[in-house]
């Protein structure tokens, strides 16, 4: 199952330990995390469930393309990194 990791910046505000979760897409993997950590959802996604403007996600080293639907595929042994984008200051 994919492993998902959150940048230390977000952990200043809300606990976000590394997790191994089921999910074939970025959306599914994130939902699996948020199911147990609802507060974290608001740090990563906006009101409409889109990726926040100044948050970025890499899957196996490649930046995701679908920032609204989060439909980018994730391999069973993939690694997902959720990071703050430098555009946010």
């Amino acid at each position, binding site marked *: 199952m994919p492993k998902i990791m959150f940048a230390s910046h*977000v952990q200043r*505000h809300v606990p976000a330990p590394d997790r191994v979760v089921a999910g074939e897409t970025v959306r599914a993997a994130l939902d699996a995390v948020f199911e147990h950590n609802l507060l974290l959802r*608001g*740090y990563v996604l*906006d*009101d409409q469930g889109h990726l926040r403007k100044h948050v970025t996600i890499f899957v196996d080293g490649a930046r995701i393309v679908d920032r609204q639907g989060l439909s980018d595929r994730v391999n069973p042994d993939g690694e997902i990194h959720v990071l703050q984008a430098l555009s946010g*200051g």
Partner: protein
Amino acid sequence: MTADRIRVATRKGLFTLTHTRGAWRIGAPAFLGDPVSMMLDDPRDGALYAALNLGHFGVKLRRSRDDGKSWEELAGPAFPPQPEGAEGSPWKLVQIWSLEAGTGTEPGVLWAGTIPGGLFRSDDHGDSWRLVRSLWDRPERLQWLGGGYDHPGIHSIVVDPRDGRRVTVGISCGGVWHTDDAGDNWRNVAQGMRAGYMPPDQQGNENVQDPHRVVASRAGPDILWTQHHSRIFRRGADAAGWIELDTAPLSGFGFAVAVHPADPDTAWFVPAESDAKRVPVDARWVVNRTQDGGRSFETFSAGLPQDACYDLVYRHGLDIDARGRWLAMGSTSGSLWVSGDQGESWFCAAANLPPIYAVRFAG
């Protein structure tokens, strides 16, 4: 009796100054490093609220029930799903721009104004919030304009202390809206304002007015003051419309206004060079005061920098305490000034803070 305190929301945290042993002393900041867009001390239960605007991770609302020693995160305002094809600003929270408590007879009621121009209400001390759809769904909202931001925003919420169902909100740029029935119905009450930045045939359009800040005195809540983008305006108790005041010295432009809690005819303004520059006129920091409802003004500069000063006091950067004893103002350059004599002289209480977004007396 609780000590006098000033909360200061800045780009890098929330600061508190306390008046002890004859001096204003600054304490350790909360949320150091994080932008704080607004704060509220709820006089009804002592709760302290802080709205953060985290650069990466969005808008957050925190509450403290022990005067800032510890904080809990609240769900905070959020927009509902945006319908397909909905026009206007994206239904995404950009900033909490105003926070106000309801009256003493409605415990738990809080109001939040946001960018984009949403008004939110909580009935449970901020634990949950709902968008006031009766205002958000007004067709006139599509005429509103961003003022200093990409999208319109609600920066002023005036709750009538005699009746909490009567609420007035100021919108940059969308005029001044009022409800008599807790938000079931709204009407734009910006008649009389004039938007000098619009084409001639649109300058009287209520829905494009930019009242930078709207305030009212507790002693006369039917009288409204605004520092508008184009001029100072006052709306009398007869609600006959806003009267343009061209008597303010130096400049009619500025952002902030404060009104005396016990005298609706006494108000303070911080003039700035209009509007392409937005710095103190002639690099001298002054405060204008009227005590006769705007018929005349006095200008005060004692204690304020009078040379090479480029501090700007933003719309929430000027406040008066509930007893009308102290005034405080903070600048985008990080200076905080306090007056104990009705604005006639000032002293610097802190000179090197981060850029100041809002100044409020606690309690």
